[in-house]
């Protein structure tokens, strides 16, 4: 099999994943897209390992070993990720990524003194949290 097929397939998979990560609002779908991207990389690893091992006299198949490694890590990652999403959903009643904006810089007029900034930041954060909880 020519190297171009798996390469193109993996590129398509990766782009699909990238699109999902950048554009989907649902956190679970974003996690799935991340999985897609990881698997695209896995595919590349396996394909290039085979392609390289044809030329080499002796090989460790490190590409395939790395793939196994990635799969294991991806499994752990998705476990933690889903747990976080669940916790967020229970807390906030939503898992839409674009509404989880607690780290945003507060808007409003540019205060001169450091005290003023602190105070407004506190109130804004408190407001947002109250809104999110509701």
């Amino acid at each position, binding site marked *: 099999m020519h190297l171009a097929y798996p390469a193109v397939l993996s590129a398509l998979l990766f782009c699909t994943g990238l699109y999902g990560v*950048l554009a989907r609002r649902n956190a679970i779908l974003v996690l799935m897209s991340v999985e897609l991207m990881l698997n695209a990389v896995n595919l590349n690893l396996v394909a290039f390992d085979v392609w390289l091992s044809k030329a080499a006299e002796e090989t460790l198949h490190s590409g395939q070993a790395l793939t196994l490694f990635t799969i294991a890590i991806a499994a752990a990652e998705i476990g933690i990720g889903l747990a976080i999403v669940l916790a967020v959903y229970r807390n906030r009643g939503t898992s839409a990524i674009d509404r989880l904006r607690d780290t945003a810089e507060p808007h409003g007029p*540019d205060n001169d003194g450091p005290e003023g900034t602190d105070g407004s930041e506190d109130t804004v954060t408190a407001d947002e949290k109250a809104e999110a909880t509701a």
Partner: protein
Amino acid sequence: MTTTTLAVLVPLLPFLGAAAGLLLGRAAPGFVRPLAVVPTLTALVLAVLVAVRQGGDGAVDAATELTPTGSVPVELALHIDGFAALVAVLVGFVASCVQIYSTGYLRDDPRYPSYAALVSLFTSAMLLVVYSGDLMVLLVGWEIMGICSYFLVGHYWETPEARAASLKAFLVTKLGDVPFLIGLFALATDAGSFRITRVLGAVATGAIDHPTLIALLLLAGVAGKSAQFPLHTWLPDAMAGPTPVSALIHAATMVAAGVYFIARLLPLFEASAAALVVLAVMAAVTMAGSGLAALAQDDIKRVLAYSTIGQLGYMTGALAVGDRGAAVFHLLAHGAFKALLFLAAGVIIHAAGTNSLAAMSRMKDLRNRVPDAYWTMTVALLALAAIPPFSGFFSKEAVLATAEHAATGHAERIPVAAGWIVLIAGMATALLTAAYATRLWLLAFRGHGAEAPDHGKQPLTMTVVLWVLAVPSLAFGLTAGLLPDWFDGRELTPTLTTSVLGTGLAVVGGIVTYGTWRHTTALAARAPLGAVAAHPEADAAQVEAEAIASHAPAYGDVAYAPDPADPSRLLLGPLHRPAAVGFHLDAVYRALFIRPVQAGAALVRFLDREVVETYVRGAGALPRLLGAAVRRAQTGNVQTYVSALLAGTVVLAVAVLLVATGA
């Protein structure tokens, strides 16, 4: 032990006592009293031993150099002549009395440990000044006294009067100490040494180039320390401290240091006629002004404070006419009776519950309540008024006799003008002194009206000390025949003319005051007045602190009471009000020094707040603007961040590709 070892121990023991008291004061309260009293008493015994061994013969000199100090060496030196030996005995004696008295006076005071340690340190510093043979070492003791007086005057720091008074005492004496330091440097540069013996040697050979300038610079420091006009204003205010501290400052330490310093370096001052005349004018103004002010004071301790200033004026007057024997004789006699006056005043304030003479003059039977204070204070006031045969008579007559000697042109190198100034002012002050002493006695002990509040029996430690101090007040004058052996050898016995004149004036002052008092005392019943702090259970110090704090609210001023029955009102006439407030000298200082300094401070604050801070704020403005722009990007949406990351990666990848392909 050699005399030198003994003499080293004299200042060292109170110092060690002070260090131990400060370290152990809280940990071992039981040791505080012994640690305060025993080292001071031992120092007194050793000082007496040193005096006996020295015996008025040749001065004991010893010196050791700890480390080389550059061009002019600073040495740990002792120079004990007759003056030093006797003054050290006085310092030890008064300090011991004060320490014993304080154990009763501040019986329940929570800050007694640090107080006693500071009194010991104060004593040690004064003894260092007395014995030191090196001007720099002397200066060390001099400055330690300055800081000790700051702490001790501010002992009742809860009251605003005490805080203000302690700051004032420190700042005013420092105002004199700066020229004093410069004067010491100039003197050492000319003489090539800080050792007193070498400096005096240089003076004798005429090696000092600018004696007038140096003498005047040194005089500024002396005026600050010894409370001479115009730097005397801190002393009356220092009455906000506890009474034993006043006794210590006024009798033995601090104010005596300035007079003693001039006595040590008198040949230097004699080398300049101008300095002597300045000294005489200073003494005369101080004497007369303080006499008038003392007559108008309402606070019993302020009367005594002004009287101290006046008596110090006598001492500087004696120095201005070139007789340090008479000056130190008066210093010794005055030390004993002034300590007695203050300690007795402490007892009276405790018994009466007030420090106001106006309130005391409306109390019946105060003298029966404190018989010890009554009798000893009578003795001390007679000594103050220079009535024979009390000690003050002999010492004051010694001063006046010397002044007369100089005024008639019999003294070498002393300007006749200085003699006349001192003589006339001294005579006028003799009259005033007798007048205010009589007034104090009449108002305090011959009051009519309600019974004084009962504060119980005075502690034994307080009354015994009074009798101990009464002995020298009575009998010290008898030593007038012996003292010349210790001093320069000049006669100190009274001469007929000045004795008759001085005593006559004193008697006139006393009788006139008595007559006025008889006239005004009927008014006292008609004008009720007075506020009394009654704490039958508390110790004397608390009563005093409260009396001081309540004086201004009760009478409108710390120094003045609107009492129509006061004999001084009749005696002084329109002068009464200015005299009560110290001739508005504080207001002059406010206008001359405090206002400009405050204006300068306001200017600096304006420059700092408005000018410097504007630059700082401007420097911060640009980074803050940039920061605001960057902060906009922080939307909180993770996907935006990842998109930016991707865009960046793509840009980088394209760039790398372009570079790699060489396009």
